[in-house]
């Protein structure tokens, strides 16, 4: 019996080596190890064995079964592996083909810069105020210490609609309106918006452009606070390496008046063509609010003081992105706009 078992094993293992697929494998399992399989058949003869022989043969039968089963298992796993492999092969795609694009638009660069500027100042505790673009002469000029016939009105030729109404030439009238609104209370606002000046359009000029102005009024506002504010702003906007440089200037609505240069954003101050080798770029005008402007806005200049600053948003955007022509902002070529579809 032992011999038959051994023979069965030899035969079964030999047959298994011939197997081509899972089906044949299963057939052989049934044939040798099934309920009616060859092994069961042999073991049926166990009844005729002596009590001493039985456990011995039993032992041998177990070994035979285990070895066939182990081999069967091995082959089965191999077939599954092969099968999976084939399937994966068949499912393989070219991952280098382009993905299905998610629609992505872009914020206009001027809006992008405006939002950034607003956010910086909001973080510093400012409100964002807006005002009309068609403005009264009083708010655009007179309340800003620019009476009719003031020579400084030459500085900006304006688009008048009537004697008293014009397209605002600056966002400063919003400052005056804010002062009136606040009615003697402290003020801390930035005012972004469109402004208009009679200028022939070219690469650096546009009859319509955008400004953002800031105004702070309280007791004890100092010129040193203005410097501190601007330095913080410039570092947040352009990076912590930025420095500012102040130059005396003239605006009718501030005294003292200041022109502010910042470290050239292109060469970081080493001197390049953009900054005419000076290392500095002029980006904003500012100053301490003129006492006449405070008075007209309803503040006692002996009790209150304030500072104001203003800058051109186009100028900031041109510098920040290295844009070469201001007209791109208003032409809205999609190839231009698309470039601003990022953080």
């Amino acid at each position, binding site marked *: 019996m032992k011999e038959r078992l051994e023979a069965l094993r030899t035969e079964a293992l030999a047959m298994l080596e011939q197997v081509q697929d899972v089906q044949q494998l299963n057939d052989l399992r049934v044939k040798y190890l099934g309920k009616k399989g060859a092994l069961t058949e042999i073991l049926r003869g166990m009844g005729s064995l002596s009590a001493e022989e039985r456990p011995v043969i039993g032992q041998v039968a177990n070994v035979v079964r285990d070895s066939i089963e182990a081999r069967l298992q091995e082959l089965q796993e191999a077939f599954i592996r092969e099968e999976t492999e084939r399937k994966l092969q068949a499912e393989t795609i070219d991952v280098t*083909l*382009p993905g299905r*694009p998610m*629609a*992505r*638009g*872009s*914020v*206009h660069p*001027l*809006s992008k810069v405006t*939002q950034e500027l607003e956010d910086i*100042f*909001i*973080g*510093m505790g400012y*409100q*964002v105020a807006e005002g*009309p*673009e*068609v*403005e009264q002469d009083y708010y655009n000029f007179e309340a800003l210490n620019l009476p009719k016939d003031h*020579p400084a009105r*030459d500085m900006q030729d304006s*688009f008048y*609609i*009537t004697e008293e*109404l014009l*397209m605002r030439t600056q966002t400063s009238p919003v400052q005056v309106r804010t002062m009136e609104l606040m009615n003697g209370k402290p003020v*801390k606002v930035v005012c972004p918006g*469109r402004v208009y000046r*009679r200028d022939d359009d070219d690469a650096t000029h546009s009859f*319509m452009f955008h400004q953002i102005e800031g105004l702070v009024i*309280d007791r*004890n*506002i*100092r*010129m*040193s606070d203005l*410097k*501190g*504010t601007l330095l*913080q702003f410039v570092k947040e906007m352009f990076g912590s390496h930025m420095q500012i440089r*102040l*130059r*005396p*200037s*003239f605006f009718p609505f501030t*005294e*003292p*008046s200041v*022109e502010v240069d910042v470290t050239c954003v292109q060469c970081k101050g080493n001197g390049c063509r953009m900054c005419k080798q000076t290392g500095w770029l002029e980006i904003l005008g500012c100053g*301490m609010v003129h006492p006449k402007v405070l008075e007209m806005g309803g503040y006692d200049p002996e009790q209150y003081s304030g500072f104001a600053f203003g800058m051109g948003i186009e100028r900031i955007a041109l510098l920040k992105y290295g844009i070469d022509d201001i007209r791109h*902002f*208003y*032409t*809205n*070529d*999609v*190839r231009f706009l698309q470039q601003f579809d990022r953080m």
Partner: protein
Amino acid sequence: MNVSYQWLSQYIDVSGVSADELAERITRAGIEIDVVQNRNQGLDHIVVGYVVSREKHPDADKLNVCKVDVGAEEHLQIVCGAANVDAGQHVPVAQIGAVMPGGMKIKRAKLRGVESQGMICSAKELGLNDKLLPKHMQEGILVLPSDLTIGTSIADVLDLNDHVMEFDLTPNRSDCLSMIGAAYEVGAILNRPVTLPTISVEEIGEAASEKIRVNISADHACSLYTARYVKGVKVGQSPLWLQNRLLAAGVRPINNIVDVTNFVMLEYGQPLHAFDAAQIAGSSIDVRMAREGETLVTLDGQERKLEPHMLVIADAEKAIALAGVMGGENSEVTEATVDIVLESAKFDGGIVRKTSRQLGLRSEASLRFEKSVNLEHVVPAIDRAAELIRTIAGGAVANGVVQQQVGAHERKVVRLSLEKTNRMLGTSLTAADVQSILERLVFDVKTVEEGVFEVTVPSRRGDITLDVDLIEEVARLFGYDNIPTTPIEGATTPGSLTKSQRVRRAIRRLLTDGGLHEALTYSFTHPEETKLFPALAGNAKPVALAMPMSEDRSVLRTSLIPSLLDVATHNRNRKQEDVHLFEMSSLYLTEESELTKQPEEKLVLAVLLTGNRQQAQWNVKPEAVDFFDLKGIVDSVVSYLGLSGRVRYEANRPVGYHPGRSASLYLKTNDGEQLLGTLGQIHPDLQRSKDLADTFVAELEIEALVAQADFTIEYKTLPRFPSVERDLAIVMDRQAEMGRILDQAAAAAESWLESIRVFDVYTGDRIASDKKSVAISLVYRHPERTFTDEEITEIHGRVIAAIEAEGAELRK
């Protein structure tokens, strides 16, 4: 103002400070100098030569062969092509080795076989601005005065070893429209004293008042008028030194009389005028307003119609000059002039400004009067001019200045507190610091009590009237960079955006995330364009600019759509055919035909779609945008602002649109509803004229959305009981509106309806041609239990009845 470094050094010691360094320091103290021009662009080896002889070139008609004495042992032989070269002239000679301002190197050369050992130069070749020179000096070689020493360096002769600093003056600093003013500024910066010219006029016994009388009739327009009388002048060319000064300042030399008046104007900032005394009728001058209908031919030959608001200088009969603006031809100094009357005055800036603007006559003189001249310089300037004319043009100066003054002149006194100075600047300056800075400016400073000064401001600084003006002077000379940097003290304030600003940011984010590009376009447009899409403008009229720069930009827009269409056309012309844009800007609306108050500025959102939804690629099919892309965007905006279910679309054919593919949009409010905007395909005619493919636009009022926008999010418990879904296929008239059926169905289902969705719309062969079939899916749910079949059948039955009541049939 062009300030010559060399000329400046006549009034202040600038030794040890180069022109470039000085320019930098002036700039840092408040007057911007962008350009420092070196007047010597390469004049080594160029000297004064004397043309000993001139002969025709043997082989060239237009060339001359000259023998020139340059002070060397041998005369140079120079071939010269200029027609005006002649023997006996003093001329600039560039010798071998010279490198001309243009970069040309002078070498030994042969011209048509004749050796040439240098070049005789023209004014331009020396780097002079020849546009400022008289014609005879522009053409050919520059002929120099005959009293020059042969061999002298040309740079010395023409004062070209000099730098010119271009002062870019802000309107408040008209004091620096003069060399002396510039000297005071430099003096304050360098802390060095200013030396004024010493003037003593050599007069004859005859009194000027015998020769000329002056009177100011228009006493609101002229505060001081002075005149001097100079007899027997000889009008001619100015000496070289004077011409050189004027050229350095960029002023054209004309003749000795005019040149002196210009020189003194540049020196003192006081414009002067010279009249031919023989032409002054009645030997009297009156400063009066022009008379109605009066005319004057000005020096430029133009006849000017004068108006009563213009100030004139008149003799006994007629106007002879436009005060402060330009002289009259009838009293001009010519070569025949013998006696002259000099004028130096202070005219009202506003009147001069108005006249010069109205007549388009702006001159160096009017510029200075407009910004107000220094009253204290009126007399010194006329004295200086009289004495210079006497020495340069001959003549005898009559005794005395004839003058009339209106009112008294007092210097301004401004009180300044040290405490306020430091409080404004954030500095800790001492009284001595402040005093010393103000004294550098040659302001008279008196301490009236501790920490309080009384500062007497010289009349040249008309810009200083308040203590803050003095504080600025202190700050700029102390140095803005020396002011500390501090944070604002006191309570911090929270920053924030308004609701309107937040809504606009939300819309911007939603639309850009959805694939649209934000555009910004001009507010000005052509009047015709304002008629295209009038929905949001209503009856409003466009606001017109008084003086537009062009018809295309002559009115304020009343719709954003035409601007976006132009953007689409621009892109399409550049092969960018898929354009998806939006803009948020204002419309300007008024009911008035003559504006008396500010127009309404209405913020709107405009959207434009044209071309394909997305650029086609291997896994994206090219699909053209349609009305429903646009409507989907509008719906998203509405629902993003918490307003879904609050809008109604009505196909009421808004102007400008395709009548069958457009709608108006209404927003339901507490008291009814309001027009929110319009949307649709633009009219095919417009599409054609703008050269566009099918283009879809929408325009919505932002403030209406802002007013209603609701940012609250309220959580609803997730459903715990199952829903029931039923589909229906409805056949209805093609013209009928599905929106109405959906509304009715929803109403009939009451609160049990969770959602209703259109999942197919069919028109075609399988149904009648005037019908459409719409398939919808309805989801019903009870919040507290599971519906029974009977309940669902009952609810769904009501829905079907409601649909059928609208004239639709169920498709079986």
